């Protein structure tokens, strides 16, 4: 040992020994004190050395007072009591300096005995298993993440958890509201997060109960909106639960009276919300969601309500999602849907009704896609001012749409449900769209004018019926921007609808008789659609669309 290392050893000066001796009434000579001091040091070192063995066998890296006491005991020395605390004893300097002593405060036993806040017992030792590495590869959820939550779960938190779950799933709407509100704002419930996530994942077991599903989704929404919670790895689980509500053929949907459509719409909105706010937490989440939506859409065996969910989900995720997944898939999907819609048998009635829902949802999704595309194209061309430069090979209604879109963006901000981007930002964000606007116009091959009609519905100003002079739709191609909505509006209100039907006939060869009547019905139901959210609007509107469009034939 070098000199400095030498000093690592405890050295007890002989003065201390003499002092201790004096305190017991003994007088020691210098020589004896020196010898004793040296011996004491050695014994201490020896005991320390021996105590390390106890530390090693307890699989610790820290030598504790207990280890030392054990070593003393095995050397038949009385253990030193009173130093068993886990925390290090603070040493305080005496006023004279040079002298340090451990703080030893007096404990008021009376106070302690009468104290009301009796410390709770330690948590029970438990074993938890966790698959740490699957086939030698790491598990994504870090080991210990749950344990740390478990270990820090106090009684209060547990009570909170019970109260909140009871309130949310209970009968009192007022209580539920409060509970959800608190979930949304409470900053101290991080430890309970896994539990609530687990509760939300309970959607899978209550798929027969729409009410419960709604409430669980609300819990999820509250959790997502709580700014104090770091969802971290739980995003995945939440997304899974929400997707379940969006996509699965819920047991509740067997009964046609159940309005599971609203649930799916709400879940889809929540999904997009989670994605927009927490998507960065999980890499590849967007891709995963798209993939699962696509899978459902591409699976013809799935019931139509699942397809509906997939479409509204895509719509909620934004027009790009629609473009990437729905658009390329549409041509194949359309055939299937059409087959359903064309079956007039009584046994098919329910399925057909569902098919109309899907149709409507697709329509809404595609509509926005078109709008955004048009907008993007417009802004690339140098702004809305250039109206005249139509391409010669454009479809007849091309110009209408082109001209309509800027005004749409300007006048109806509500329709895009917040996802509408200002025209300027669309261009740079999507500099080379995989699908050109012209391509997308092929959509009209499917939807024909019902798409065009949709553009009109959102227009708040021109809802009033127009004079029949505007009927000439083909001629309107060269007309001003306003014409298109006017036209459609008139088409809708027109009791006869003959003129409109002309337009329709371009793309579909529908029998003329029935639609007339149905259009009237549509008309009567129309005022309702201006709901707060597009999703709820579909719900109101879609039955009508179903009725009005069941006569459509596809040109394919």
């Amino acid at each position: 040992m070098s000199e400095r290392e030498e000093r690592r050893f405890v050295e007890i000066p002989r003065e201390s020994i003499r002092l201790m001796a004096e305190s017991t009434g003994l007088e020691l000579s210098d020589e004896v004190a020196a010898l004793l001091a040296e011996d004491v040091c050695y014994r201490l070192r020896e005991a320390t050395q021996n105590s390390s063995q106890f530390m090693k066998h307890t699989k610790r890296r820290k030598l504790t007072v207990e280890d030392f006491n054990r070593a003393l005991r095995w050397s038949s020395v009385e253990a030193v009591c009173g130093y068993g605390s886990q925390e290090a004893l603070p040493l305080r300097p005496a006023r004279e300096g040079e002298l340090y002593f451990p703080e030893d405060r007096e404990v008021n036993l009376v106070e302690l005995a009468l104290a009301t806040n009796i410390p709770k017992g330690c948590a029970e030792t438990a074993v938890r298993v966790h698959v740490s590495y699957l086939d030698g590869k790491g598990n994504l959820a870090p080991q210990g993440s749950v344990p740390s939550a478990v270990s820090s779960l106090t009684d209060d938190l547990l009570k909170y958890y019970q109260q909140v779950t009871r309130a949310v799933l209970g009968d009192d709407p007022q209580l539920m509201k409060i509970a959800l509100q608190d979930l949304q704002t409470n900053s101290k419930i991080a430890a309970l997060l896994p539990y609530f996530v687990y509760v939300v994942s309970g959607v899978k077991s209550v798929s027969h109960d729409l009410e419960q599903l709604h409430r669980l989704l609300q819990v999820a929404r509250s959790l997502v909106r709580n700014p104090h919670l770091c969802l971290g790895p739980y995003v995945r689980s939440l997304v899974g639960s929400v997707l379940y509500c969006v996509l699965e053929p819920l047991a509740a949907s067997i009964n046609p009276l159940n309005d599971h459509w609203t649930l799916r719409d709400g879940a889809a909105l929540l999904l997009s919300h989670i994605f927009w706010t927490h998507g960065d937490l999980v890499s590849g989440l967007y891709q995963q969601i798209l993939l699962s939506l696509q899978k459902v859409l591409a699976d013809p065996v799935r019931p139509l309500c699942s397809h509906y969910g997939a479409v509204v989900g895509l719509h909620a995720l934004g027009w790009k999602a629609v473009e990437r997944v729905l658009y390329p898939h549409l041509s194949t999907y359309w055939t299937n849907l059409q087959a359903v819609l064309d079956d007039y048998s009584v046994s098919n009635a329910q399925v057909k009704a569902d098919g109309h829902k899907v149709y409507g949802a697709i329509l809404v999704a595609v509509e926005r896609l078109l709008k955004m595309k048009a907008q993007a194209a417009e802004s690339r061309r140098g702004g809305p001012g250039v109206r005249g430069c139509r391409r010669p090979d454009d479809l007849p209604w091309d110009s209408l749409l082109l001209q309509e879109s800027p005004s749409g963006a300007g006048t109806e901000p509500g329709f895009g449900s917040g996802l509408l981007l200002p025209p300027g930002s669309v261009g740079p964000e999507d500099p080379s769209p995989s699908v050109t606007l012209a391509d997308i116009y092929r959509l009209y091959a499917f939807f024909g004018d019902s798409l065009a009609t949709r553009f009109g519905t959102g227009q708040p100003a021109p809802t009033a019926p127009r004079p029949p002079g505007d009927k000439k739709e083909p001629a309107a191609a060269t007309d001003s921007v306003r014409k298109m909505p006017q036209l459609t509006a008139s088409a809708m209100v027109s009791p006869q609808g003959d003129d409109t039907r002309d337009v329709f006939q371009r793309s579909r060869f529908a029998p003329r008789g029935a639609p007339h009547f149905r259009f009237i019905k549509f008309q009567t139901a129309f005022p309702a659609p201006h709901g707060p959210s597009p999703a709820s609007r579909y719900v109101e509107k879609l039955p009508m669309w179903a009725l009005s469009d069941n006569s459509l034939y596809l040109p394919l």
Partner: protein
Amino acid sequence: MRRLRRSRRRCGQARSLKEPPTLLLRKQGTALARSDGGTTNNGPNGGSEKRCERASSVSRDGETPKPVIAVSTVVPARAAPVPAAVPEVSAPHDRQTLLAVLQFLRQSNLREAEEALRREARLLEEAVAGSGAPGEADGTGAEAASALLSRVTASAPGPAAPDPPSTGASGVVTVSGSASGTAAPGKVGSVAVEDQPDVSAVLSAYNQQGDPAMYEEYYSGLKHFIECSLDCHRAELSQLFYPLFVHMYLELVYNQHENEAKSFFEKFHGDQECYYQDDLRVLSSLTKKEHMKGNETMLDFRTSKFVLRISRDSYQLLKRHLQEKQNNQIWNIVQEHLYIDIFDGMPRSKQQIDAMVGSLAGEAKREANKSKVFFGLLKEPEIEVPLDDEDEEGENEEGKPKKKKPKKDSIGSKSKKQDPNAPPQNRIPLPELKDSDKLDKIMNMKETTKRVRLGPDCLPSICFYTFLNAYQGLTAVDVTDDSSLIAGGFADSTVRVWSVTPKKLRSVKQAADLSLIDKESDDVLERIMDEKTASELKILYGHSGPVYGASFSPDRNYLLSSSEDGTVRLWSLQTFTCLVGYKGHNYPVWDTQFSPYGYYFVSGGHDRVARLWATDHYQPLRIFAGHLADVNCTRFHPNSNYVATGSADRTVRLWDVLNGNCVRIFTGHKGPIHSLTFSPNGRFLATGATDGRVLLWDIGHGLMVGELKGHTDTVCSLRFSRDGEILASGSMDNTVRLWDAIKAFEDLETDDFTTATGHINLPENSQELLLGTYMTKSTPVVHLHFTRRNLVLAAGAYSPQ
């Protein structure tokens, strides 16, 4: 502090009084051990082996259940060295002076004066008798006397009768003879002479007492010589530094040259290899003769011989140098305290030496690892596997019912073949298989067919059992072979057993309730279980100190636990009560393990011995003594015929259960060994130590065959996969590492030359063998287990920093 000292002494008395009848025996045993050690001149290992052989030889016939109870009285080995070094009450000073005077008289041929003085001091008669008798002033006599001086405390005047003068011819022998009295050492003494041929010539002019001031000079002289020697010799001779340094230092301390000792230490401790740091730290705190009495580490040094392996060339070189320089001080130490194992041939390289050294008492002697070890597996009993309905159904589901049969046959035929390296089936009496054991074996076979074949491309999944809220008190873990139960030993003296399957732990009902049961009913075995108290956790109370070891019996009916309170307890997993407390260690018991066939178990502890027990005997059947420090871990060989122990003296030993002999000593670890495991085929042993290294050993050849570097802290647990393809190691550094065992054992250097010389060349391939490092979150990996389908279960207590 006086009280401290006094109480220490008192404790010594108390301890010896605890077992008064054995006191006498123990002394004898000690004497025996010492005499063996001294006369055979084979150092610590030989001595203790002898001791344990003697101890167990009573039951040579191998009927294990007949316990060698005599053994247990032979001693806690810990006690052995103590009396040897304890000086008698008479002042050693006086005796030393007397001896010095006598020596002087003899050298000056003043016979009469010498005789007179001797008569005066009758006390010393016997001691000097041996050497005095011949009366010639030739070197031997003088040397003997001086040897006496150096060991004056050892030659306690006792029953030792005057030795026959004939033995006086060999001085060394006399010395040890005087201590033992019962030894007949003549012939063994000659062995020593044979080993070091020209001893007497070198010794002729040596002066034991030596000037303390000269020690530094001697040492630096030797140092200079070794550093200037040829490269090939330098590495070998450098091995001398450490033992010489320690012995010279101790001699200085012993002769109470405190200041010289201190300066000697300060001057030369820096030259020593880094892996001796821990011992040096102990050494440096030792500055008083009185302190040496109680310091076990140092007692080992004085009473056992440090073993060095040196080529003949290097040895000759050293001898010549010492002769030339008349450096008797050093030569005396070499002679007295070192055992130099000389071999012919090329000197070893530094790497070769470094791989093998590091233990407390040097390397193992080559002879120590020469005996035959039956490392093969026992033939499995043939069990007709009934293709019961359930099984067939399962097969039909898989759609290939025919495939199963040949498979089963192959398993059967494998076990039918007798392994040429296996011990005779009945070498150790093993318990007969019960019906339940057979059922379990069948289950095992079924699982085996579904086992994952592991390899570098197919790594196992790892499940981690985290002990929560253990407050850093988890000290031991064990998992049953079928992975259905997990037991934890805790620092709060409890043992807790968890069921890790949905099946809860049920105990048998109370006697009163049992009497109500209809004993004729078919499901009586089901009815006796108490459903009300069923739980997934049962706590076993009984120990009065931290539980350091736990082990399930193979049939899952029992659990063993070893504790700081010095006992091993056997618990029933039917009633969850303690059945037996095995007392014998008297000091903390660090580890215990059931034999793979049940019935026997082994324990090892702070008293430096491992004990073999049978569950139905309250005293041990064998005592495996020989380690120089605590036995930290104990493991049974898969064939149950051998026991491996890892110790704080940095050696691993393999013991024969049949006769208690130490059949292998493995050196090479640089820190206390804390984990051991045998490969499933019984050929290899893996050991892990505090230095973070895992070493692999070939048991048959007695060689180190691999070194796995990677862990940064103590390796607490080791386990081979069920087929031995993967070695998993768990450490205090919060990682599990997987190693390619097949590759590690692939091309072994087990040619005749390597086997004969024991010179090994380890490839530096740790990185290639490491298949994966898996982090836990601040959870030291205390235990590892491979399920029957090769899923890794790891366990440890979550210990937030």
